[in-house]
């Protein structure tokens, strides 16, 4: 029985994981992956494994000029604090979700 219970719990966790990832992305969040690769590769950094707090603070720095950029300064200015926070939370949760 203990074995079966373990299977059941593992199954529940596994099956609910994708449901979290499938909740609608907040406005703008789907655009990030157009440039930022899922896994580190090339000149543009991956966002995988970054905390929501880090993403928010970097976006803020791009917006106010605290961090030099070629294009992210122009893009970050298109998102409010609330929108940025929602995107950061979604990215961080997506990367934390188990992969099928």
């Amino acid at each position, binding site marked *: 029985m203990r*074995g079966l219970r373990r299977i059941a719990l593992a199954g529940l966790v596994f099956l609910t994981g994708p449901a979290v990832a499938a909740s609608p992305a907040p406005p703008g969040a789907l655009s990030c992956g157009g440039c930022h690769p899922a896994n580190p590769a090339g000149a543009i950094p991956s966002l995988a494994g970054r905390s929501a707090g880090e993403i928010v603070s970097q976006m803020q720095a791009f917006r106010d000029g605290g961090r030099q950029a070629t294009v992210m300064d122009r893009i970050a200015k298109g998102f409010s604090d609330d929108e940025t926070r929602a995107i950061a939370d979604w990215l961080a949760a997506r990367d934390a979700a188990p992969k099928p």
Partner: protein
Amino acid sequence: MMRRAPSPTGSPPVMPRPSRRAVLAGLAAGAAALAAPSVGAQTPGRVVVIGGGFGGATCARALAAAGLNVTLVEPSGTYVACPFSNAVIAGLREMSAQTFTYDGLKGAGITLAARAATAVDADARRVRLDDGTELPYDRLVMAPGVDMNFEALPGYDASAAGLMPHAWKAGEQTLLLRRQLETMKDGGTVIISAPPNPFRCPPGPYERASLIAHYLKTHKPRSKLLILDAKDAFSKQRLFTAAWAELYPGLVEWVGLSGGGRVIEVDPVTRTLVTEFDRHTADVANIIPPQRAGAIARQAGVADATGWCPIDPVTFESRLRPGIHVIGDAAIAGAMPKSAFAANGQAKVCAAAVVELLAGREPAPPKLVNTCYSLLAPGNAISIAGVYQPKNGLLADVEGAGGLSPQNASSEVRATEAAYAEAWFATVTGEAFA
């Protein structure tokens, strides 16, 4: 084996004893019920996607990842990407770097119909293929790209493109223009005819001019490049103009609409381009003609009198035919340009909207981004960016965001942008085709 959790999508592991199989089946069903927000478990919607370019392929993958039943209709076995194809024309890149297969999509659970769609019945919600097959759908996504409009410029039809290539769909046309440049004599004249708005890849003709100029300067330095333009203004104009003066002095000449630059007729046999005031004879003529949405969009009734497809900016659903969504170059996306980057973003937003609609929910208004890089020379690039949101029924610029690369950026910044362009291409083709 007993420790493995049942897969949510695949078959459960084979169990040795029926009693345990029954128990596990029950567990899996219960877990699936608990996972109700997962659309795949709840709504087995049938979605057909027409067109396997950046928009269609990316959308098909996003829909399949959400658990929907997706068929991609695409007659070509391979896809040849347009971004960076100007580098192929200039001999800086090989076609193999532009060419992708659909094997990755098959692996992602997408059914591939390697046929051309010949008709869409929007009322019956069916797509007809050229072998007579009919595909029923709950939602249809059309990503048909552009057709060259061979009725818009007197003298320029499909056969003329064999003599004066447009090279505006990557593939044989790209290689034809490259060969013509390679066989041209030093001291020859290359002419690019740039179309009126709207058209695929607004900065594309001017990136092409830059890279052809680089080729001529390097290999045939006595040659000239003339751009005859149907417009008085174009994308990244100040940046391109400054780069031509700096990198290719005396080599590139641009003539806009008010200077008599609009080409009104061509003669492909003599390679003559006729403007309102003049006639120009080219050694190599690249005619980028006016364009319109792919033919199947017009057949389906989703294109309006302009030849393009009006859409709802939240869902990308056609304004003309319910149940059909249009993404990418064929769509009238307001301030968003017709770019691969835009098609990729629209594809993912549209897929999310389709998932919500099939689940009976209302999609929330999206925000979209575009970034287009243009090469001025190898290792030297500029960009334009924008952020967009629905406003008054169109996708409008978010004020205060976006814009161009700085006018006087250092060569290091230009080199960084060139590296980012390459990295973007790797990511966006990976999202679509890997």
